[in-house]
């Protein structure tokens, strides 16, 4: 299938994007005021001790040389040694990636599970009380900041009802599910609000489309027309919206992991920023950026699969 040829050459197009991301994260991290060596050694220390630490992590080298080492490490599959933890950042990330993955994937699944039936009900019963209710809730959902929703969910389900733990991640599988339900629900609801509105609008347009009329004229019942002809056609714009929002979700994990004290990459990033651990910050930022690029790549593959007209 030559429509999928972009899968081969898209990674080549990604190279300039990744170079750009590496430069930006590298420069941005170093433009934060503060000195990692001073943070590491505390306020009472000597200039010679500071100099030693700077030398040890290459922080005394010129910026361009530091960038060169950063890129060289990337080619070796390393992200540099954390100033605070004294291990390679990639190893740090490996221990922290699971909770973040669970958070992002769990949120997306929850959002889809909520948004698809909601949008379907609202679109098929346009103007009914169910439609109005769904529209009000999803519009309100757009207005709530994630951290506020998180706190409200904690107050209701953890403090009042005691159904879910307030913070932490857990050890066994079910323990993890138990811990991650509220965090996933927080971001999942926010995402569901966006998706519901978008999906409802495109379903409504497709319900009135010529091709849906023609399908009805063939004697296919309304439910059949809806799931076989309306839904596939209305998914195309939603896939791209979802990809954009997963990018937002990945960076949004920083807030959620902080509120729920989840030991994920977001938390690692926040700690890295406070301790001026340049290697950690640029490493996590690189991984986040690559994940966002990857998600959009997957969305493109999905779009091409759903819609045969799309050529990339």
């Amino acid at each position, binding site marked *: 299938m030559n429509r999928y040829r972009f899968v081969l050459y898209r990674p080549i197009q990604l190279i300039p994007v990744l170079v750009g991301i590496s430069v930006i994260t590298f420069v941005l991290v170093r433009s934060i005021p503060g000195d990692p060596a001073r943070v590491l050694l505390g306020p009472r220390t000597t200039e010679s001790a500071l100099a030693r630490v700077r030398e040890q992590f290459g922080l005394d080298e010129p910026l361009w040389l530091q960038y060169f080492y950063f890129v060289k490490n990337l080619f070796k599959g390393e992200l540099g040694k954390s100033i605070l933890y004294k291990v390679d950042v990639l190893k740090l990330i490996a221990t922290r990636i699971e909770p973040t993955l669970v958070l992002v994937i769990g949120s997306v699944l929850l959002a889809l599970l909520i948004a698809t039936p909601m949008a379907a009900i609202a679109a098929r019963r346009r103007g009914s009380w169910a439609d109005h209710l769904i529209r009000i809730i999803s519009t309100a959902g757009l207005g709530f900041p994630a951290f506020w929703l998180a706190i409200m969910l904690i107050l209701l389900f953890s403090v009042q009802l005691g159904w879910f733990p307030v913070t932490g991640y857990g050890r066994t599988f079910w323990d993890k599910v138990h811990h991650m339900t509220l965090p996933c629900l927080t971001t999942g609801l926010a995402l569901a609000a966006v998706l519901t509105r978008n999906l409802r609008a495109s379903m409504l347009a497709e319900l009135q489309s010529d091709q849906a009329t023609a399908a009805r004229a*063939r004697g296919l*019942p309304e439910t059949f027309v809806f799931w076989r002809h309306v839904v596939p056609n209305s998914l195309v714009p939603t896939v791209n919206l979802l990809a954009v929002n997963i990018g937002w979700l990945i960076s949004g994990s920083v807030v959620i992991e902080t509120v729920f004290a989840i030991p994920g990459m977001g938390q690692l990033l926040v700690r890295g920023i406070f301790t001026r651990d340049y290697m950690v910050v640029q490493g996590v930022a690189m991984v986040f950026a690559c994940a966002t690029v990857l998600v959009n790549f997957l969305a493109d593959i999905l779009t091409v699969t759903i819609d045969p007209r799309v050529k990339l």
Partner: protein
Amino acid sequence: MTGARILSVENLSVAYEDAGGSYNILDDVSFTLRKGEILGIVGESGSGKSMTCRALMRLLPSSRLRETGGAVRLEDGRDVLGLSQDELSEVRGRRIGMIFQNPASHLDPVMSIGRQIAESIRYHRKLGRTEAWAQMLDILRQVGIPDPESRANAYTHEFSGGMRQRAMIAVALACDPDILIADEPTTALDVTVQAQILRLLQQLRDERGLSIIFITHDLGVVYQLCDTVAVMYAGRLCEYGPKHEVIHHPRHHYTAGLVACQPSSEGGTGLVPTIPGQPPSPRDMPMGCRFHPRCGAADALCAARQPPLEESQPGHSCACHHPADLVAEAEA
């Protein structure tokens, strides 16, 4: 026409209702279709010809439009307007198929042509995947799509205009309906392709005994294809009869005007005559005969009273107080 009556539309009326009131879009439309007959419905844009077909399929494009009266009787006497959703599903597709002006937008762009046809076959005939697929290939062959095995997997956008219309005919004929409603199927095609599609429809009528309602604004196409013609103006039927009768001896002045507007190849002044004025809006229908403001033969009676559709000769009816042939005789 000798075939048995297969569909009769009796006094079909459709109204548009909104906060401002109720407006008649279709008024008292009646005609019959016999087995193997091709009926042409002609009229200007907005005359109600498409609306008639949408109404008899119960596919009105807005919830504000409603069938307000009349009946659409099938061969077995059932009224389509009174059917339940389940019965309607059976009638659409199995008894009446429909094709549209713009196949590109009336076919699902993200489902292959073959699957769209096989889907109807599987749904209506409760067949398995392989049997439905085999029947589908057969139908593609019948509508003249070359190399059906590979074209079945193609999508709408990969077909040319003429092939798309053939594909849509195949989709509509998937479950072997008795009646095909064709809503301006050749308007968007160029002339050579149009001729091919018309030939295909004729061939389907001859081979399968298909009855066709063919909607068009092109009298030339009616002349080539149809057996009977219904002329519509402003939501009403104004003349109805056998093709030769209606076109060669039009009785309604609107039909006469339409015939006169046909560009002919036999020279003339070079200017195509037109009917002066514009068709009326449903919100502002003239009293009496709806055509009288544009009619040269109109008098006080026409402005005051709606002429009934009367059969003047067997099978040829007309709704006019002063039929054109009588006016011509009087002048002679």
